[in-house]
């Protein structure tokens, strides 16, 4: 409220006349009491296989302890030529501040659509990943408050997952969990996808331990890992639940799956 009544002259040191009172507002940037972000909770997850990629996210949207809705998708097909995105080849997941997520999705979608219109072919995941990084960094000083994950198939047809921080730092990964329950899901993924901390029983002690051999997981195994990851996250995190949306990207297209999660 003080600002409202602060037209009083500011006087440091001796002043002999009211005429010296400043008549214009002091220079400097305006700071508002308004905070432009919120956290809408939820979690996302992406795993790449040899010839497929799965991108998944829960469908709950929250404001503090309130549930806004039980169905608000965080995973989107990107760059199809139709409004139903039937012919899309890329999938983007965004978690964090939902309005920024939506804005980011629409911006990337428009860019990938324009690319297809101008070049007559779909954008590669690699190119789209680079572009997404540029978009995010473009708002370095007023960031999109989201953790994005981009999924697709690379030029060889292998599954590709690119993960981001809110200001555009990115890398290609085998798998990544993001959002509210990222810290719950990521270690589980390390263990179940990359077999971290798994050793062959009786192979020795200490450095002599032999790691379990890494084999690429098949599609059904990965789907099960995703389901288990979310079922567990729902148990331990209040912002995760209601529904699980999964996009499976293969060379024959993108398949969408929806499974109910606990609504408590």
């Amino acid at each position, binding site marked *: 409220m003080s600002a409202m009544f602060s037209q009083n002259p500011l006087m440091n040191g001796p002043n002999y006349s009211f005429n010296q009172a400043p008549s214009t507002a002091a220079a400097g940037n305006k700071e508002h009491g308004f905070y432009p972000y919120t956290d809408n909770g939820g979690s996302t997850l992406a795993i790449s296989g040899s010839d497929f990629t799965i991108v998944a996210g829960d469908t709950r949207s929250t404001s503090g302890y309130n549930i806004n809705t039980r169905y608000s998708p965080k995973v989107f097909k990107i760059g199809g*030529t*139709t*409004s139903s995105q039937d012919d899309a080849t890329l999938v983007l997941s965004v978690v964090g501040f939902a309005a920024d997520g939506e804005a980011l999705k*629409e911006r990337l979608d*428009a860019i990938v*659509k*324009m690319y297809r*219109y101008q070049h007559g072919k779909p954008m590669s995941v690699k190119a789209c990943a680079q572009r997404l990084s540029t978009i995010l960094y473009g708002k370095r000083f007023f960031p999109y408050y989201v953790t994005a994950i981009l999924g697709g198939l690379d030029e060889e047809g292998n599954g590709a997952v690119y993960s981001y921080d809110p200001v555009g730092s990115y890398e290609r990964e085998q798998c990544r969990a993001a959002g509210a329950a990222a810290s719950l899901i990521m270690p589980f993924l390390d263990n179940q996808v990359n077999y971290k901390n798994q050793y062959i029983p009786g192979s020795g002690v200490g450095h002599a331990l032999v790691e379990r051999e890494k084999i690429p997981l098949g599609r059904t195994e990965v789907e099960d890992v995703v389901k288990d990851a979310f079922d567990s996250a729902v148990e331990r995190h209040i912002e995760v639940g209601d529904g699980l949306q999964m996009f499976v990207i293969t060379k024959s297209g993108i398949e969408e799956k929806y499974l109910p999660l606990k609504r408590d």
Partner: protein
Amino acid sequence: MFRNNYDNDSVTFSPQGRIFQVEYASEAVKQGSVVVGIVSKTHAVLVALKRNAEELSSYQKKVISIDEHVGVAIAGLASDARVLSNFMKTQSLSSRLTYGRAIPLERIVSAIGDRAQTNTQHYGKRPYGVGLLVTGVDETGPHLFEFQPSGMTQEMVACAIGARSQMARTYLERNMEVFVECGREELVKHGLLALKESLAQDKELTVENCSVGVVGIRGEGMKTIEGFKLYDGQEVKKWVDLVADGAEAEEAMEVDS
């Protein structure tokens, strides 16, 4: 010697009330190869004759998909058409972005109409040297619009623009009563037959020089549209064969004899 003093820019009328630059722009449309558009209750089709500048070059693109529900065919300067189609693309995307709605045909057509008109009223500007046939579907069904460099736009049931397009228009006028009830295949056939009328003596329709664009509705509402699809090369073979000389007895007779 006679010299026209009223065609140096597009802002000066001649004493006869003509703007020559705009009329010259219309001539550019007539230089372009012919395109035909027809609309029925359920579909709108575009059929175009492609030209290659020389034997060794590729064929110029004549039909462009703007959005899921809109497509255009061009006659005239292809580079001017690209400017217009890029503009239409951004208009269409922005409608989807701000309202989540496919832009109504009438709206996108008047947008390019307004843009073309300003070019005819500002010193130093040049009218677009291209005519367009704009087809698409919206909540009110399928539509076909004609666009001219003057900024003129009008809704049509069938239309042909470009070189020798009068012959095609004559065909369309003769058959216009039947179009409204046509299905997509019949409509494409009529389009190609009209196109064929406009062909030069030594030319015929081939899979190389033919482009077809189709858009339509499947049922009520916008969710069930048949999105604009462009057919080129081998995809148009079935239709080209359908209207080829000798394929249809009575049609072929008239031409051959």
